[in-house]
């Protein structure tokens, strides 16, 4: 089954120099272990391939049901150097939430994950 990250998490992003950070927070505490298992370093690196020029770092915050990702080389130099509309990485949050996940039907049903709408 396809599950959209935007239906199971919320997020906020910000900047530090040329790095954008994206905090991803489970909409239900019970969904956090699934998020932690699914949003691996390689999955997120692949998601932002071609969007950022540097690597990705990943941190777990089970106490907040959240994951924090640092996306390096995300902001065309960052701060005042950047020519981007989103020079401060404010909406990398929802760029992350565009991710669509493949979840075995049984697992999705057990967790009560909402299915992605059929296009």
């Amino acid at each position, binding site marked *: 089954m396809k599950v959209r990250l935007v239906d199971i998490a919320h997020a906020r992003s910000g900047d530090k120099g040329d790095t954008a950070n994206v905090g991803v927070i489970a909409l239900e505490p019970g969904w956090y272990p699934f998020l932690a298992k699914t949003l691996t370093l390689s999955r997120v690196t692949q998601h932002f391939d071609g*969007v950022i020029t540097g690597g990705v770092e990943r941190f777990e915050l089970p*106490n*907040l049901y959240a994951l924090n990702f640092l996306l390096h080389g995300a902001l065309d130099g*960052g701060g*005042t150097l950047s020519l981007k509309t989103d020079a401060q990485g404010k909406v990398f949050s929802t*760029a992350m939430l565009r991710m669509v996940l493949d979840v075995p039907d049984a697992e999705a049903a057990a967790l009560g994950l909402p299915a992605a709408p059929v296009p």
Partner: protein
Amino acid sequence: MESSPTTQSSRIVRVASGQGFWGDWLDAPRRQVEGGQVDYLMLDYLAEVTMSILQKQKERDPAMGYARDFIGAMESVLTAVTDRGVKVIANAGGVNPYACARAVLEVARARGAAGKVKIGVVTGDDLLPRIDELIASGHALSNMETGEPLSAIRDRVLSANAYIGSEPIVEALRLGANVVVTGRSTDTALTMAPLRHEFGWGAEEWDKLAAGIIAGHIIECGAQCSGGNCLYDWRNIPDLANVGYPIVEARADGTFTVVKHPGTGGRINVQSVTEQLVYEMGDPHSYITPDVVADFSTIHLEADGENRVRVFGIEGRPATDKLKVSVAYRAGFKAVGTLVYAWPVALEKAQLADRVLRERLDTMGLRFDQILTEFVGVSATHGRLAPQTSEAQEVQFRVGVRGPDRKAVERFTREIVPLLLNGPPSVTGVAAGRPKVEEIVAYWPALVDKTVVQTKVEVLA
């Protein structure tokens, strides 16, 4: 006055956030002191490059160089300070805290409250006059991201400020100040210092200091923890027009509750506070400040009634022996131009405009470090992650250049408007005329040994 342990442990100190950055809602400080009981009003004015803007202003006029908005804010909250004992803590001093303090005293005098305002002025963060001495004595002030020593850009430095911690603010309060003005204090120290002062937290009570820092992190961006810019359930956040800015109700044991005044809009819940906690987060296990290293993986949040979130369990570790330094330096020039292309096939027209423009820049032999094109309405914010599933009704063609040569950037600014008549069709949206050339003031983060920075506190009345 001595208080018994029981009174101390149940006592609550309220720190209200009234400004999350320079340019935030002018009405917020007044609303915070009028909407209910608060003990401290915390106003954060400084972003990374603000100091360099202020430095430029001070070069033009030695009486400037601080956040002017703060003077208006003080006017709007003056009677709360003089008659109700609300204390104000702000990093509005920028590169000229004394001029800022004098301007506040002038406001008090004009309002007949001259004797009622005691301003603590915190200085010592400004390293600009000492840069050569520091470099000569072996402090490379290397860029934390690239490792390059500051000497590489020495002649282009505009400002250099150490981020200072809570101690001088605590000292100013101890000396009886009811308004404290600092230069480059950390945002979080503005909240932690009054708690440390009120509860007498020691310099090595790491868990409590970390709690004060995290309280500061939660409220330092104003309404961003109380319903502003909140993605969670955003449609149902009530009355954003009257959004209540956050207040920390802190206790001596380091636990605190995030609240807002009754009758205000917005919403404080576990989700809104969590979104703010992860904002601008690096390694959550090591949130480094001059006072303490806070561990965000120890934070516990709990709903405590409507619009109340209790925060507890926070742990901290000893501070490092370094201070972060924010250096601002001239880094060339940039300009950004925009045009709007309309249906049909708006994107294709905008893409042709981009090719035409780039060919002309190339023909003229103009060289830039960067030329960046975005198609706003299609892919500007999410790049290739955004699917082009339906035809855009209009597209903003947005192109920027950056480089060391001011003349080249200026020439670029003359190439946008002509596209109206000599480029692809169905184009509009140049009411503002040609783009402006901006000098880039870039940010250079560095570290310096704590021992080289001596802060000073003086109380003016």
